[in-house]
């Protein structure tokens, strides 16, 4: 091929602001994959050249920088976004100029854009499994706490409905805290929890305030053995911001944990350490950010162009041996077939995987009513 020009790609992850811990890890995931791709000869001999900007956890900045990536930096494909508000800010721009966005984050579902590939979990790939596991092991009286934005609202609706399918279930409260909540914002909630004595706490608190929630829980003297916090968003990254042992015994449902015992995962983690040292904290969003870059690169090798029209047919239906297992982009809804897992935080701040899916679970982003006992949600027991 005559064309040896580098291929510019846009990278939009927050390196500063309330969601910067996850943002940085997603950036590392993307950059690691870019390095691997370039080390292996790039895309048919063309180098991938990332152009990165820091939207600072601010949706308006995301929109401005997406425009800038398209118009000044001349990119056709953007990798980025974490909170739904950032994705919603970028989508109109992506759609207006018919560009492509890869979104490596779990979110609340009910979206499809022909210009977006979603590589994080939809609720049928994490919430159902978490509800099944927690309610059968701890009981079905739940206390819901979330950050004050759309993802927690919708996740709590789903969790509330799932839990209420159990006998003796009760939704004791649904509470929201600001995105920048500090430990004192949780004080009154902890007092309420002491009164209401739930079987478990479901947390959709995100970002830096996650550490404050677990600190407030520990300070209240609660015991995860009898009343754990169950979460979709507390990953290795959030745990790394906490004092040692603070999250031990609590549960998270995610398609990826650093502790996954697979060749692909070990290889990827070794590469990451070599490239970034110990400053990078791999987690579910890091992994999605990593594998989606490879999915893009593989499609690009076949298409030869990074224009969405040429690229999309090679992305849809494509598969990749990701650290979590072999993932596949679903051609009908642009989301990804993933492997739900339940992890319990151990003393090292890592997850001991207690349940995991044998086969990947098909994404169903428009599912309104989730059911417990769904065969697709059944997981294999690894540890009790």
């Amino acid at each position, binding site marked *: 091929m005559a064309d040896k020009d580098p291929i510019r790609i846009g990278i939009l992850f927050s390196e500063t602001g309330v969601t910067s811990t996850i943002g940085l890890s997603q950036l590392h995931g993307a950059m690691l994959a870019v390095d691997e791709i370039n080390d292996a000869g790039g895309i048919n001999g063309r180098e991938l050249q990332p152009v990165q900007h820091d939207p600072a956890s601010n949706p308006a900045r995301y929109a401005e920088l997406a425009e800038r990536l398209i118009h000044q930096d001349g990119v056709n494909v953007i990798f980025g976004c974490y909170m739904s508000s950032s994705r919603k800010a970028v989508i109109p721009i992506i759609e207006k100029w018919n560009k492509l966005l890869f979104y490596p984050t779990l979110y609340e579902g*009910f*979206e*499809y*854009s*022909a210009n977006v590939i979603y590589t994080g979990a939809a609720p049928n790939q994490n919430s159902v499994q978490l509800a099944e596991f927690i309610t059968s092991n701890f009981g079905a009286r739940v206390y819901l706490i979330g950050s*004050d934005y759309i993802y927690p*609202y919708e996740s*709590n*609706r789903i969790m*509330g*409905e799932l839990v209420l399918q159990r006998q003796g279930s009760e*939704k*004791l*409260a*649904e*509470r*929201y805290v*600001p995105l920048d909540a500090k430990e*004192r*914002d949780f004080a009154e909630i902890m007092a309420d929890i002491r009164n209401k004595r739930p079987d478990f706490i479901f947390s959709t608190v995100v970002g830096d305030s996650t550490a404050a929630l677990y600190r407030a829980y520990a300070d209240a003297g609660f015991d995860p053995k009898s009343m754990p916090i169950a979460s979709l968003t507390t990953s290795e990254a959030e745990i790394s911001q906490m004092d040692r042992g603070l999250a031990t015994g609590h549960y998270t449902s995610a398609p990826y944990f650093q502790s996954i015992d697979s060749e692909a995962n070990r290889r990827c983690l070794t590469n990451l350490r070599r490239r970034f040292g110990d400053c990078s904290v791999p987690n579910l969003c890091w992994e999605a950010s990593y594998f989606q870059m490879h999915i893009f690169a593989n499609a690009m090798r076949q298409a030869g162009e990074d224009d969405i029209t040429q690229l999309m047919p090679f992305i849809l239906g494509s598969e990749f041996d990701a650290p979590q297992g072999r993932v596949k982009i679903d051609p*009908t*809804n642009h989301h990804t077939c993933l492997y739900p897992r339940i992890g319990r935080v151990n003393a090292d701040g890592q997850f001991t995987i207690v349940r995991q899916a044998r086969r990947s679970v098909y994404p*169903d*982003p*428009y*599912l*309104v*009513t989730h059911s417990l006992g769904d065969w697709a949600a059944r997981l294999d027991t690894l540890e009790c």
Partner: protein
Amino acid sequence: MVERVEHRSPLRATPQQLKELRTLNVAVVHPDDADGRLLTQQLQRIGCKVQAFWPPVQSIPKDVDVAFVAVRPDILNLNMDWAHCEDAPTVIAVVNYENPTIVEVVLGLGAKAVLPSPVRSFGLLSTLVLARESHKENRSLQRRLRKVEAKLLGVRHIAEAKVVLMKTHNVSETEAYDMIREQAMSKRTTTEEVAKAIFEAHELLSMGHRS
């Protein structure tokens, strides 16, 4: 920290209109073009059962709950009577013009919502749920109205029958009503039916003797 009012009720339940989405039978009366395909695919993502019809049909299967209909210049003269029958589906018009001619057809179809062309996947779910809700509410109001009208007519019949009985049998109003009720019980019918029969019989017998 600013004191916040808890804005979400602790017993937030998912509305029925959303729960029923996966059971809906949807007809897409639309050509097989970019809009038609986008519409069908998005409905399938939402989880509805979708059937496409084109060219436009004279009737639509009985089990269809919602019909998306392409309202365009070439269907203006077609017979769309199915949209007006008693248990017609919820109609959502897909339009590419909004001149008075087209809007008139949309009104004529009794559409509960409009989707502008080019169709986007975003917004379809909300449109579907709202149109469905408004159609259901409309239908149940209409049913209630019909019941109330029937009830009102019945009350009028009873009043008239009582007057007839009071005059012809020389009884009080209470006694007249008791007579109607006894008849109704022995004939296993409603007081309204008996009253109607009494009044009509009286009308018939007193033909030509009216004052």
